[in-house]
């Protein structure tokens, strides 16, 4: 099977580029802590309201953790609890969320906070809120007739 010299050059360049991409995201994920949200903890979706920390949705200060706050959301068709929250600028926050019914999305629009909420599972993401502004949380996974009216608000304040 004859492979033209130029094709060899192209494929070597192409594969090298892909390897560079994989290395960059690999290092970022496994060494710099930028893993996609992959919490393995489970929960009973019918007992969410009585299971910590979902029994106290909203922004909660915590001690002795790598983060300063936990921001806890309970999602259901078609709303998020809390519907509005204020986060101090520069706060390192673990965002935790789960759903009481169907699969919902949880996307703080324009940020990297973007996770799927599946019944029976807890979703979490640690980040530092380093920009002032008003951020819309949208449900970006179809969940029924009210899907496009399911939203919440985060205000990052000084």
């Amino acid at each position: 099977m004859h492979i033209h010299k130029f094709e060899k050059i192209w494929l070597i360049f192409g594969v090298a580029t892909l390897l560079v991409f994989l290395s960059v995201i690999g290092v970022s994920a496994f060494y710099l802590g930028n893993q996609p949200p992959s919490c393995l903890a489970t929960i009973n979706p019918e007992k969410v309201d009585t299971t910590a920390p979902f029994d106290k949705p909203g922004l909660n200060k915590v001690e002795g953790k790598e983060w300063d706050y936990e921001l806890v959301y309970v999602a259901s068709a078609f709303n998020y609890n809390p519907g509005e929250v204020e986060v101090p600028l520069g706060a390192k926050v673990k965002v935790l969320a789960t759903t009481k019914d169907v699969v919902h999305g949880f996307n703080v629009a324009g940020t990297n906070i973007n996770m799927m909420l599946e019944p029976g599972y807890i979703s979490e993401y640690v980040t530092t809120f380093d920009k002032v502004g008003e951020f819309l949380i949208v449900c970006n996974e179809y969940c029924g007739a009210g899907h496009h009216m399911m939203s919440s608000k985060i205000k990052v304040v000084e």
Partner: protein
Amino acid sequence: MAQPRLEKRTSTKVEDQSSLKGTLASVFLLGFFLIITWVGVFLLFVNRF
């Protein structure tokens, strides 16, 4: 019969190297497009929280 065919084969091979220059240029343009778009979104990721 065999001789002209042989000639054609070698001359096609020599032509081969230069006559795919446009292909090489085209795929490398494609490659740069892939790199630029990827880096663009990577930078978005890095700069967002």
